[in-house]
């Protein structure tokens, strides 16, 4: 049978998907045990026991200076920044994107501006943000918004502009005003696309979050990684990276699941 026709069932694809991850883990364990045997104080590839020991303190023991459980405080601070940035971007994408896509005068006025902002590398604006908003939370959230909102706005606007002309005409022959058309025809059809845009934007959003935290912060997952880098503390960095991966993957799965639950009509004929 040709490989293009080999469809893998659900159980088997879970099993197959686990294989490369397990192989990577095995390779890591073998290499780190090897290095540990030669040099028991090796810091580059710590053995799992060392990671558990290092993380134990961060997860369960209050920091002596601040009295906080650092791991959870880092996670909370980062997720708050990320959530705020994504929420603002999503709202902007929904409102501006729909208006740009549906109303030709708005598109003529603002689409050049949005495209112009979208092509600026956001990290280049980080100094401006720090100067304008200070080193606090605002600058970090603003970096995420500037980084992902233009992309999301353009994605939604393009999707709205691609709505069949027939639908827009039909809605008007059914008596819909511009407002009713936006509310009942454009908005509901933008929603599933918006969720996909959020899923795609989460990757870049994490990049901007970690960058902002690395440069100026006193708490956060990115801050911690860049702080302990000075001590070559791979036993903290690796679990933190794994934790970020877990958080990102969980959000992605939740978003996909909610899109399928909420917008059944958008996910094919066999729902």
């Amino acid at each position, binding site marked *: 049978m040709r490989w293009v026709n080999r469809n893998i069932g659900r159980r088997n694809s879970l099993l197959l998907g686990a294989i490369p991850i397990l192989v990577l883990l095995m390779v890591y364990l073998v290499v780190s045990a090897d290095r540990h045997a030669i040099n028991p104080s090796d810091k580059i590839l710590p053995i799992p026991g060392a990671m558990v020991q290092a993380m134990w303190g961060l997860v369960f023991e209050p920091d002596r200076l601040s009295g906080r459980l650092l791991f959870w405080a880092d996670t909370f601070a980062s997720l708050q920044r990320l959530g705020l940035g994504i929420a603002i971007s999503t709202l902007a994408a929904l409102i501006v994107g729909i208006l740009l896509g549906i109303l030709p005068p708005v598109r003529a006025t603002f689409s050049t501006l949005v495209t112009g902002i979208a092509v600026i590398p956001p990290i280049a604006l980080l100094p401006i943000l720090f100067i304008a908003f200070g080193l606090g939370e605002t600058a970090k959230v603003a970096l995420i918004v500037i980084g992902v909102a233009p992309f999301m706005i353009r994605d939604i606007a393009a999707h709205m502009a691609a709505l*069949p002309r*027939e*639908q827009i*005409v*039909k*809605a*008007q*022959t*059914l*008596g*819909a*005003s511009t*407002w*009713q058309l936006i*509310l*009942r*025809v454009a908005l*509901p*059809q933008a929603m599933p696309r918006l969720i996909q845009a959020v899923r795609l934007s989460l990757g870049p959003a994490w990049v901007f979050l970690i960058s902002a935290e690395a440069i100026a912060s006193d708490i956060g997952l990115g801050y911690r990684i860049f702080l302990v880098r000075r001590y070559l503390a791979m036993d903290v960095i690796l679990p933190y990276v794994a934790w970020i991966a877990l958080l990102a993957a969980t959000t992605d799965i939740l978003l996909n699941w909610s899109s399928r639950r909420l*917008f*059944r*009509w*958008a996910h*094919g*004929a066999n*729902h």
Partner: protein
Amino acid sequence: MNALLSLQNVWVEYGDKVVLERINLNIEAGSFVSIIGPSGAGKSSLLRVLLGQEAPTKGTILLNDEPLKPQCEPDRGVVFQRYSVFSHLTVLGNTVFGLECAQAPLTARLFGARRRAAEAEAEEMLAAVGLSDNLHLYPAQMSGGMQQRLAIAQALIKRPRLLLLDEPFGALDPGIRADMHALITRLWSDYSLTVVMVTHDIGEAFSLGTRVLTLDKARHDPHAPHRYGATVVYDLPLKKQATVEAGTCVDNGAENGPEVNCIITVDETRNN
């Protein structure tokens, strides 16, 4: 003039390309006008102008003796070949939409007793097109024929004075198409509709219509073919009872004798 729709010297031009020229037409209430013609002859442009989707370059269009606004209004319903229904609404939601727009300007949604009344009206309309058993399906779950039935119900619930059909059955297979012909003929007589239908299918044009218009270029300039537009080259009135079943069009024209199926004498119109 007692014509429902009247076009007087209508021209449609895009840049220096003339698509339609010198269109003079009077369409009486209750007629079923089929428009045929070769590809690119401006059939769809004419329909867009009637719909108000675009304004004619020259000329006037009167609907009930009032000039037509160059904007789609609920007095003209439309069914396109595709994309006529909203994929995010169920069958019932699609049909109720027109009532919601009229009755709830701000939210475009109805609640409580008004919603139940609107849904009852929509269900009645859906029963008329044969979709009673599929009220809660989404368009993606239905066949092409069912989607077109829905598009027709959705348009008719607004009781349009004029129903415009743009190749409504072009994408359907022949069996379903025959069912749809019977359906549209029945609805046309039950609801005393005035229908303008653009089609590629000449058989369909003659079996459904009470009048067949042919659009084509009457003049031709070989050096600048785009400078002459299409116009109505044949205007064939068919006499036919509204009650006949679709597909068995009977022409009662006196000269042709009885029982002549769809044989028409061709008169060149004074448009040329």
